[in-house]
C-alpha cells in the first residue's frame, strides 16, 4: 500500500468520517482514497476550494463534534497556518497531514523535511503547539494516524502528521492494528444544536481582555506540559554502547540505520535516536545520552532545523554536528558514514 493510502485508510479505521482537502502533490492519494472510501463508510469527502477553506471546514466539523482530517503538502500547509492557530486556540481536535515537499516557494515535489520549524515551533501566530508525529515507514504512518486521532481528542490539541514525501509515495505492506482507544472526555463543548440541557456551545478564539487571553494561553500551556510529559515517543537503535549518537526522523532515519550498520562494520560505535514525536521532542532521552556519547549528529533533509532541538537537548554537554541535504535530495548512508569517520578520527 502507498503511504498516502495507508494514512487515509488508517484515519477511516480510527473513526474519521469527515475529510476536507485540496489537491497537491505528493499527497493526492490521500484525498483520492478518501473520495472513494468515505461514501462507502457513510462519511463525507469534500474537496474544498482551497487549503484555507479546507482548514476552516475542519474547524467547522471538529467544532460540530466530528473526527475530521485534512491533508496537504508544504505550500498548502503554509496557507493553513491562520486556521491552525484558530483551531489550536479554540481547542478543537483534528488531524492534519503534511506530506512535505521541497521548498521554499513552489519548490519541487520531491521529498524534504524543511517544514520542521513550521510544524514544531508554530508556523502560525501566537503561543500554541501541535502534537507532531513523524513516521518512518508506511506501517508507522498508519499507526501514528490512529494514535493522532485518539491523542487529539483526548487533549483537544490538533495533531500533525509530519511525513516527508517518501513516506507518502512509498509502497510497503501495512497491517491495520485495532486502534488503542483512550477513555475520552465527552465532547459536550461541540455545536450540535442546543436543547437547553447543557450550556450552549461557543466555539471561539477571541478573548479581548488580556487577563482572559492570558488565562487561555496558560491553560494551553498546562495541556502542552502534560503532553510533553506523557506523549513523547522515540526509538533507540544500537544506542546501548554508542559513542556517537545520531538523531534523525522519518525516512532519513532509515538511511541513517543503514549508515549505522555500516559504521559498526567499520568498528565505529554509532547509534540512533529516532524521534517518533518531534513535538514533544525526546529531549530528555538525548540529554541522557550525553552521559555516554561523545558526539551527536543530526541528519535531516533541510539546511538545519531539528538540529536546534538536538542542541537544546544536548545543551553544550557534547559537540553537535549536522549533516543535511535539501531541495529534494536524499542523504546517502555514505554521506553519514563519512561524517562518522571524521568524528571518529577527531576523537
Amino acid at each position, binding site marked *: 500500500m502507498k503511504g498516502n493510502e495507508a494514512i487515509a485508510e488508517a484515519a477511516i479505521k480510527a473513526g474519521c468520517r469527515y475529510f476536507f482537502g485540496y489537491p497537491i502533490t505528493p499527497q493526492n492519494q490521500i484525498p483520492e482514497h478518501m473520495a472513494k472510501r468515505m461514501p462507502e463508510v457513510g462519511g463525507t469527502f469534500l474537496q474544498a476550494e482551497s487549503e484555507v477553506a479546507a482548514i476552516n471546514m475542519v474547524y467547522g466539523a471538529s467544532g460540530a463534534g466530528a473526527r475530521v482530517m485534512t491533508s496537504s503538502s508544504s505550500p498548502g500547509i503554509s496557507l493553513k497556518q491562520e486556521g491552525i492557530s484558530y483551531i489550536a486556540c479554540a481547542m478543537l481536535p483534528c488531524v492534519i497531514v503534511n506530506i512535505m515537499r521541497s521548498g521554499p516557494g513552489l519548490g519541487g*515535489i520531491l521529498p524534504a523535511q524543511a517544514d520542521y520549524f513550521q510544524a514544531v515551533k508554530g508556523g502560525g501566530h501566537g503561543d500554541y503547539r501541535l502534537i507532531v508525529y513523524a513516521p518512518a515507514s508506511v506501517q508507522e504512518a498508519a499507526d501514528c494516524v490512529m494514535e493522532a486521532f485518539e491523542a487529539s481528542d483526548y487533549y483537544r490539541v490538533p495533531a500533525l502528521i509530519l511525513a516527508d514525501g517518501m513516506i507518502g509515495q512509498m*509502497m510497503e505492506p501495512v497491517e491495520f492494528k485495532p486502534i488503542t482507544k483512550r477513555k475520552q472526555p465527552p465532547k459536550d463543548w461541540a455545536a450540535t444544536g442546543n436543547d437547553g440541557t447543557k450550556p450552549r456551545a461557543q466555539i471561539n478564539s477571541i478573548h479581548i481582555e488580556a487577563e482572559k487571553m492570558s488565562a487561555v494561553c496558560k491553560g494551553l500551556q498546562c495541556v502542552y506540559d502534560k503532553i510533553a510529559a506523557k506523549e513523547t515517543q522515540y526509538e533507540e537503535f544500537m544506542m546501548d554502547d554508542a559513542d556517537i549518537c545520531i538523531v534523525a526522523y522519518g525516512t532519513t532515519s532509515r538511511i541513517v540505520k543503514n549508515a549505522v550498520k555500516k559504521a559498526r562494520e567499520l568498528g565505529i560505535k554509532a547509534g540512533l535516536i529516532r524521534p517518533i514525536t518531534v513535538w514533544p521532542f525526546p529531549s530528555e532521552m538525548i540529554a541522557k545520552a550525553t552521559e555516554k556519547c561523545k558526539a551527536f549528529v543530526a541528519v535531516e533533509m533541510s539546511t538545519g532545523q531539528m538540529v536546534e532541538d538536538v542542541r537544546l537537548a544536548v545543551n553544550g554537554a557534547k559537540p553537535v554536528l549536522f549533516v543535511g541535504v535539501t531541495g529534494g535530495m536524499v542523504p546517502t548512508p555514505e554521506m553519514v558514514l563519512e561524517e562518522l569517520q571524521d568524528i571518529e578520527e577527531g576523537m
Partner: protein
Amino acid sequence: MINKLISAGFGGQGVLLLGQLVTYAGMIEDKHVSWMPSYGPEMRGGTANCNVIVSSDPVGSPVVTNADAVIALNGPSLDKFEKTVKPGGKLFINSSIVEKKAKRKDIDVYNIPASEMAIKFGNSKVTNMVMLGAYVTATAVVTKDSIMIGIKKFLGKSKAHLIALNEKAFDAGAKLVR
C-alpha cells in the same frame, strides 16, 4: 537476498507501474518490499523513476543507491542512472528510442527494442511490459506468475481484455534475454 531496482523513463511510459508490479510480486512471494517514486506524477515529460527493493530481510532505507538493476526507457534515464548500477549489475535499455550506447563495461547491458515491439503489438503503452519481461527473466527476482497476478489486479475488470496483450509483451521481452 536483497535486490534493488531503478526503473526510469518519461512520465507516461509506465515506469512507475513497472516498479509497482515488481513490488507487488515480491509481496506475493512473502518478501519485504518497498517502492518509492522519485516524484509523484505531477509533471509530464521530464524523467520519472522509481526505486524498488525486494528483500528477504526488512527493508532499511527505501532509497536505492547501488542498484542491482536499472531499467532505462529513455535517453535521459540512461544518462542519469547508468552510474548507479553496481559493478556486476544489470542495465536494461529501451534501444528503440535511446540512441546512445551504454559506456560501462563492468555490468551486463541488455538492449531491448521495447517501443518498436510494443508498436508491433499495436499499443505503445506496453513498452514497459516488454522491459519488465526482460528484467524479470534476466534477474529472476520474482516469478512471471507473481507478476501476472499483479497485472490482473492492476488492470481490473474493466480492462481485463488487455491481460493477454500485456502477457504477450512480457513474453516477447523475456524471449530476448533467454
